[in-house]
């Protein structure tokens, strides 16, 4: 469904309307609140809403606009939802876990500081798999999030709440975090744009750590232009994150209009021909053909071993090893509830055993095993060596192609409950998004059509390190061609 004057309001449109007096931050916010109140009871995207705080903020912005004392803020009056593992001062930050029930963030994450400086209005925190561990958002300790395109299906994960909030037109933009695909996969399953910037270009300060060498904050939006706009705001050096990369100012929207015929676009069978689901495969093949028709040079990379069958094992060993260490801070002493015990060690074990959910406990044990004496070299070290092989394979691929395209997810949105009891099957959902994560590459998912059942399919565009601008440019060019800009779920249109 294409939306023009219906549910979809672009961030740039909101910004222009407010600045030129055609609208106010308050009226934009009230529209967003109405949508949340009407649709979220059936979607379950939000864990916490702060409408009063958002109203105060919007009215402050309106006063500044009236006085003429507001600078040209790129996200002026744009309502934004935040995944509930990114700290917003004074708001809950549960990470979808009982372990952090009642916790309120004592400080702002770096990205939140940047959004507020840019004039954004924060409406609330969105649901996620517990500690961002999952691919369906079913691992949240608090609620199930439903896919706005089909309420009986998952929105993907782990940033499923953010993807669903955008797909249902509740907010034009949202932030998520991506460790092995947690932005791109839900973006694909919910039919919105999701972008994982190059590792290190967006500060992780204030993001609750899952796997520190993989975690990356990034945006969701209903158009590539909106995603480019917010990406320019959140990228940048931050001394509080030791892995932060100084890229200098990035004006992604200004760089979007590149000539597609200048681009060499790599295609690999593992990400296209090898896709088992015919609905997904057809959409991706048609997308590649349309890029070819538009003058892009398609380069087959089939002779390079992209190591696809090793992606899930290597990623899950690295990620769970890091998680077993990162999550040791959750012991019931400094935040969240605590299980009473007379000895410290019993209090730790009791609290963690009771308050962590099943998937988190499974991953902590897996990571503890991979790091333990006698197994470290065979599992953790081996996985890091394989990670190097992934990086080498991409170096070879990017010597012949400027960008790589393929499917984001091997399957469209699946029914709630279908995979949640089978961890290995669930892990396979990430098989196409994991390789760019292991190599720290910029990668986006952009809607590329629907399966015969009407479920959205995403096209993944991946670039070399710091090739974020090129990734967004190709996603933009594709979006212009496909006409899927501002594509939202039918429920969003019905709520207009």
């Amino acid at each position, binding site marked *: 469904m294409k939306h023009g004057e219906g549910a979809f309001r672009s961030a740039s449109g909101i910004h222009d309307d407010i600045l030129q007096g055609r609208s106010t931050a308050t009226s934009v916010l009230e529209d967003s609140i109405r949508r949340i109140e009407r649709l979220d009871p059936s979607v379950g995207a939000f864990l916490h809403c702060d409408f009063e705080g958002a109203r105060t903020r919007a009215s402050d912005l309106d006063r500044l606009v009236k006085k003429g004392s507001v600078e040209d803020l790129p996200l002026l009056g744009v309502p934004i939802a935040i995944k509930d593992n990114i700290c917003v001062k004074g708001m809950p930050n549960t990470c979808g876990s009982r372990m952090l029930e*009642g*916790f*309120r963030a*004592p*400080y702002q994450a770096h990205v939140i500081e940047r959004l507020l400086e840019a004039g954004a209005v924060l409406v609330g925190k969105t649901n996620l798999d517990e500690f961002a561990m999952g691919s369906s958002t079913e691992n949240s300790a608090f609620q199930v999030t439903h896919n706005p395109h089909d309420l009986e299906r998952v929105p993907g994960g782990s940033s499923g709440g953010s993807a669903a909030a955008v797909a249902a037109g509740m907010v034009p933009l949202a932030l998520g975090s991506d460790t092995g695909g947690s932005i791109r996969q839900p973006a694909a399953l919910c039919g919105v744009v999701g972008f994982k910037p190059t*590792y*290190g270009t967006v500060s992780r300060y204030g993001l609750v750590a899952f796997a520190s*060498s993989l975690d990356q904050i990034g945006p969701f939006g209903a158009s590539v232009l909106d995603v480019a706009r917010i990406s320019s705001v959140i990228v940048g050096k931050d001394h509080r994150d*030791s*892995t932060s*990369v100084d890229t200098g100012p990035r004006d992604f929207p200004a760089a979007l209009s590149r000539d597609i015929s200048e681009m060499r676009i790599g295609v690999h069978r593992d990400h296209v021909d090898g896709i088992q689901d015919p609905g997904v495969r057809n959409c991706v093949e048609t997308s590649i053909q349309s890029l070819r028709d538009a003058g892009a040079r398609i380069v087959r990379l089939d002779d390079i071993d992209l190591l696809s*069958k090793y992606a899930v*094992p290597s990623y*899950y*060993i690295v990620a769970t090893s890091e998680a*077993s260490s990162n999550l*040791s801070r959750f*012991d*019931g*002493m*400094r*935040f*969240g*509830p*605590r299980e009473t*015990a*007379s*000895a*410290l*060690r*019993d*209090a*730790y*074990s009791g609290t*963690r*055993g*009771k308050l*962590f959910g099943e998937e988190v*406990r*499974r991953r*902590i*044990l*897996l990571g*503890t*095993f991979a790091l*333990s004496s006698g197994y470290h070299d065979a599992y953790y070290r*081996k*996985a*890091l*060596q*394989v*990670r*190097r*092989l992934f*990086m080498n394979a991409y170096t070879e691929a990017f010597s012949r192609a400027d960008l790589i395209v393929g499917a984001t997810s091997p399957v469209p949105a699946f029914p709630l409950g279908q995979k949640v009891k089978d*961890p*290995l099957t669930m892990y396979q959902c990430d098989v196409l998004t994991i390789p760019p994560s292991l190599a*720290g*590459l910029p990668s986006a998912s952009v809607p590329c059509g629907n399966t015969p059942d009407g479920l959205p399919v995403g096209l993944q565009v991946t670039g070399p*390190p710091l090739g974020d601008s090129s990734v967004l440019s190709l996603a933009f060019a594709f979006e212009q061609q496909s006409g899927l800009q501002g594509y939202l779920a039918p429920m969003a249109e019905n709520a207009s």
Partner: protein
Amino acid sequence: MDDRTIDALARLARLEIDPKTGHQLGEQLTSILNHFDILQELNTEDVAPAPRPLDHEAPRREDKPLSSDCIDALRNNAPLDDEGHIEVPRVIE
């Protein structure tokens, strides 16, 4: 992965797990690790491990004291707080 191994891992990870759940977890982890053993077929001799995706050295900040303005907020998040201190169970027997 047998019950004893799960028990040892749970102790290392400070996770209280009842025996029935531990047994189920052991079966699941065995199945996952069997699948992950596919990595062993790759020759990684002389391949340097890549603990992070970017090969740059972590910068060091200047060693100087910084003030913190969120002590009260941190205390408010603690489950047990007594006169400015976070209360914990007995540490020394």
